[in-house]
């Protein structure tokens, strides 16, 4: 089965699941109707009514981790092709990736020492 046919199957699988979900929605709509009542559409906050919009500038405390993760994430892209040919290439591959990972680990250590790896 050629690669393109496999992608076709995956695409069909996606459309199939979306179709399944839409048929489930249609079945539910056929069973009963929704009624808009006062207070029902306010997001539930444990028994008290708070209508204020919460779409504010959310302060995420993992800023230090996120920056390091953005750069560190790329290491994965280089490691997959390397891992596939590793056994065949032998020692030079190990040393090669060893240098690469050591460099990245150096960056991680620097971040750690500068206090990036904590809740800002």
């Amino acid at each position, binding site marked *: 089965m050629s690669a393109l046919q496999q992608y076709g199957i995956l695409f069909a*699988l996606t459309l199939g*699941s979306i179709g399944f979900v839409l048929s*489930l929605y249609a079945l539910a709509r056929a069973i009963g109707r*929704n009624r808009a009542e006062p207070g029902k559409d306010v*997001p*539930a906050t444990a028994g008290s009514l708070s209508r204020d919009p919460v779409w504010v500038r959310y302060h995420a405390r993992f800023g230090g*981790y996120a920056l390091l993760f953005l750069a560190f994430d790329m290491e994965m892209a280089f490691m997959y092709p390397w*891992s596939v040919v590793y*056994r065949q290439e032998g020692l030079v591959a190990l040393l090669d990736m060893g240098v690469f990972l050591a460099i990245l680990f150096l960056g991680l250590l620097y971040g750690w020492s500068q206090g990036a*790896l904590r809740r800002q």
Partner: protein
Amino acid sequence: MSTLILVLFLLLGTYFVAVIEEWSVTGRLRPAGPVRAALRLLGTESVLARKPDRLFFEVAPVLLLVAAILSLAIIPLAPGLIVTDLATGALFFNAALAYVLVALIMGGWGPDGAYAMIGGWRFLGQLIGYAMLVVMPITAVAMRSESLSTVVIVQSQEQLWNILYQPLGFVLFALAGMAMAFVPPFDLPTGAGDLAGGVEAEYTGVRRLVFRLGRMVLILSVASAMTVFYLGGWLGPVLPGWAWSAIKILVVTALMLAAGRALPRVREASFLAWCWKLGIPLALVNIFLVGVLVLVVPL
């Protein structure tokens, strides 16, 4: 014929995962529980928040279910029994499950509710912790099997399963897999006690049914990935291949959810700290060890 078995596996697998998940929460094994819950949700009203981001609110459950089903597409149950045997199967598993995060951010941001939004962004923090710990153990597995295709990975474990070949990798992948499927003790986005349902809180009726289905298929897919990468997929002495796969997947799911019953929910700050300060160094050590082992041992 094989597509029939695969669909059957998906439905039965989701059913059994739902039964075990309900046991992990209530402590009682009720076979009719999931069917009743599904019918109840089908018949309940599906309430829409007053000022939602309607696109996000509708797409989130569907995206979660589609991502989970796609990640199951590369799981081999038996030598010929697989939906699509991609050459980069292991990578595709991780790519499909990256969209669980997108679905939870959408589900969190959509209904404009405080609990949902905090749950959504918390899961992004959790991803920053576990993402590297899913990828590096898979690289170590690929080093041994010299290919990313899941069928070749299982065949490479003919003599020795990966759980014995690289136990450190198994432990890291298991913990990161549980965090990826936000199974308790890593259920930060939908924490029952401290966010009253978090991202799941605002979904009712049929949308909640699709969201819960997505979660069950997600747990099933993480459990089958652990089986394929570390427990030798369909390899087993007496029983046919698909039987071994099914048994291993159910045992792994039961162990994963039992751990949730016994451990308190993890704190996001300490989860991130442990992942980055201990997890990633251990993953690098695991890659180095497997590197040496692959060269030395002809297995």
